[in-house]
């Protein structure tokens, strides 16, 4: 959203605008995609939060960690049990670091976006949908590598009568291809809609409360409503990261074990 004229109306979408802090200028080929933007800054902030929560809390490497480490161990344990429960079998351990990385990155990025005047990393369509497409592509390639052409037996549900099979295979194929974008679009739509809703409501309440003293006192009622929506957004931020992790496990299980 390039705003060249300094217009009076600020759009509620300005919170998602990406600004360039240190531009990357190159002579022959346009490499301005490597410049340091708000996106890079916030990924560095997410990295420092994750590293800080893991490295500063481990009580100098003793076996019994500090009380802050209990939270990290709880998250590790939850994801471990979830992955072991979903991708049960011989090879769940290969995929646990990947699922944990996805979970902790999206969890931290979502919670950092709840700070006022912050930036929502996971609300960018290109980033999240390309990530989910790559995960889907990786799962498909894993399936073909393991099973060869027998991978296509994934699209035939067990126990269907033979005349119905072509129609069902087409529907299952479409549903399988839709997984690539739906995984990313789910996270992105939730975070974008939540943040947009909060900013629009907060702007309207600010307009209401700045009229006179009576609306200032009355304005605490819609403010309580915004507080309820804020709590919902915190819950959604955490739940959506868990849903991403569990759906990635489910897609990997389909590719590895074919029903």
């Amino acid at each position, binding site marked *: 959203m390039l705003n060249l004229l300094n217009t009076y109306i600020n*759009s509620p*979408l300005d919170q998602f605008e990406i600004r360039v802090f240190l531009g990357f200028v190159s002579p022959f080929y346009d490499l301005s995609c490597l410049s340091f933007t708000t996106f890079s800054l916030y990924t560095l902030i997410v990295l420092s939060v994750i590293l800080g929560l893991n490295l500063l809390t481990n009580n100098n490497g003793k076996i019994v960690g500090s009380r802050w480490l209990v939270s990290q161990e709880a998250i590790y344990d939850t994801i471990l049990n979830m992955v072991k429960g979903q991708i049960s079998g011989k090879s769940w351990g290969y995929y646990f670091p990947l699922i944990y990385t996805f979970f902790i990155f999206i969890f931290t990025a979502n919670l950092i976006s709840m700070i006022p005047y912050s930036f929502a990393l996971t609300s960018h369509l290109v980033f999240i949908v390309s990530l989910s497409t790559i995960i889907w592509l990786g799962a498909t390639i894993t399936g073909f590598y393991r099973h060869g052409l027998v991978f296509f037996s994934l699209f035939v549900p067990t126990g269907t009568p033979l005349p119905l099979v072509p129609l069902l295979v087409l529907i299952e194929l479409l549903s399988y291809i839709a997984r690539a974008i*739906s995984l990313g*679009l*789910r996270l992105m*739509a*939730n975070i*974008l*809609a939540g943040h*947009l809703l909060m900013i629009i409501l907060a702007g309207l309440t600010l307009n209401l409360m700045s009229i006179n003293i009576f609306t200032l006192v009355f304005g605490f009622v819609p403010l309580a409503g915004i507080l309820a929506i804020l709590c919902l957004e915190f819950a*959604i931020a955490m*739940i*959506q990261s*868990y*849903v991403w992790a*569990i759906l990635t496990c489910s897609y990997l299980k389909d590719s590895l074990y074919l029903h």
Partner: protein
Amino acid sequence: MQLVLAAKYIGAGISTIGLLGAGIGIAIVFAALINGVSRNPSLKDTLFPFAILGFALSEATGLFCLMISFLLLYGS
């Protein structure tokens, strides 16, 4: 051009009707959770993660519809 802009705004309003499905879907998921826990209260810790997963998936389809609305409102 003004007609296209007006039509975009009308379309953005009409496309939010899809969130009706999201609301009903979430209510069905949690009604099933309440039903299941009331029949067998010891299954609360087993059923609750499924309920959260169902809530998130059901809300996602509603928000796909809201995304169309945002595209119409704010897309260039």
